């Protein structure tokens, strides 16, 4: 059985399997300013005061999008597709997330609702018998 693990720790929590749990991005909350940040900060970027770890809302609004056809300046492969979407999503609390977005050009409109999702990342030198699947976060249109 394949086990799914985060591509890197401290960025997100995968869904627990409980109904309605989409997983979560792991951020920081600054009690002094009432603002949220992603990814986790060591200190509040505004006051340099303490921050608290928190999970961010899994739903937000699409701020901008693009579709990358020619990923020449990187080698990270998102599955076997010829291109991929990238977007910025505004979450409640003033956090803007930059992320892969699922779908094709034409699927997205600025201002549409989006929700957190996860997808596997193709790893270099992965063995055929390796039963670990590395996952990273993305967003998809929230049509619910």
């Amino acid at each position, binding site marked *: 059985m394949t086990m799914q693990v985060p*591509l890197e720790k401290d960025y997100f929590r995968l869904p627990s399997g409980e109904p309605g749990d989409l997983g979560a991005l792991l951020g920081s909350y600054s009690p002094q300013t009432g603002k949220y940040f992603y990814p986790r900060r060591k200190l509040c970027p505004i006051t340099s005061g303490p921050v608290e770890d928190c999970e961010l809302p899994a739903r937000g609004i699409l701020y901008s999008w693009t579709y990358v056809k020619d990923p020449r300046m990187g080698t990270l492969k998102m599955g076997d597709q010829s291109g991929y979407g990238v977007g910025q999503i505004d979450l409640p609390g003033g956090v803007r997330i930059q992320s892969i977005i699922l779908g094709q050009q034409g699927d997205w409109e600025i201002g549409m609702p989006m929700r957190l999702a996860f997808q596997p990342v193709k790893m270099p030198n992965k063995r055929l018998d390796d039963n670990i699947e590395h996952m990273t976060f993305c967003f998809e249109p929230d049509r619910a």
Partner: protein
Amino acid sequence: MLKDVYVIGVGMHPFGKHGISTRDMAFHAGQQALQDAGVPFQQVGALYSGYIGGTMLEGVSYAKDYGLTGLPVVHVENASATGSSAFREAVLAVAGGHSEIAMAVGFDDMLTLGMRMGMMEMIEGPKVEQIVLPAAFFALWAVRRMHDCGTTVETYAKIAAKNWNHARFNPNAQRQSDHEVTPEEVLKSNMVAYPHTSMMACAAGAGAACAIVASKDVARKVANGRPLVRVIASQMQSESYTEGHVFLGAVVGPSELTTTTSRAAYEQAGVGPEAISLVHVHDAFPIEELMYYELLGFCGPGEGDRLVAEGATALGGRIPFSTDGGLIARGHPGGPTGLAQIWECTLQLRGQAQQRQVPGARMALAHMMGAGSVCVIHILSKEK
């Protein structure tokens, strides 16, 4: 600045994909700048070597080609703003009275840099941070701009075509078209990240550039009848928090960074944008140049499209941008890019830019963004 600082020499190795080693290109650019300045390397008090893609030894090692004089040599790296940052260090060395003459050299080969980054990923595995590429990041700006201001893809294509055509008059530019490039041609090239096509994307290649700065006493001695070119502002800022701040995957920080850095530069120079004759910016993609028209104060918010439609930012226009082709067409090897801007601004202010010459150029502004991120702005002024 404590002391006035002048650009006394500039040099360049042409940008492109020519297979020449970074060492040879750096030597060529440095020697050309020393000859242009009319000073021997033995008089240079400090050297700042800017590169992104080399090894930790190259900055000091390449300096030996100019001579072994015992001068301090420092490797400067600040992503795309590496050359601008090296130049700023040289300016500050003279302004602070630490050197009478200082030299900034930048060199890189973006093609080998890409291969090295790919090898690192093969060894270490992919990272969450690496998912969004520069082409995608600036495309996000472009799509949002189209939504907010009604900007069209034709406007982006016109900016790119303008810079390709400026480069036709620059022998050091990477992209040398044998015909006038049209916006239609730009739009027909391969899509990279909507709405950016390959002809809108900055040219990745190799090259080197160098600038030598000096005190007023030295500048006067070596002027040889040429007008003096004074550095009247040198500013660098990193990010301040803004609403909707993107920490993960942002290639550069919020666009406000350009506004705040330029305000500091204008204040230091004692002039406003109306005094500037020509501008160079981090035009890795045309959306950047369009936004910098506004963020640098050359027009109001949302008015940049009108400048493009009027041809105001082309050679012959009211405020020419990217007179040497900019990152889009002169090229963007990394380390030398900001110093190529200084090369062009200096030639323009001396009246030596030939077919690219902006008539009566008196002040030039050079702006670079560096991923991470920083904004560096210099303003140069012609003095008789």
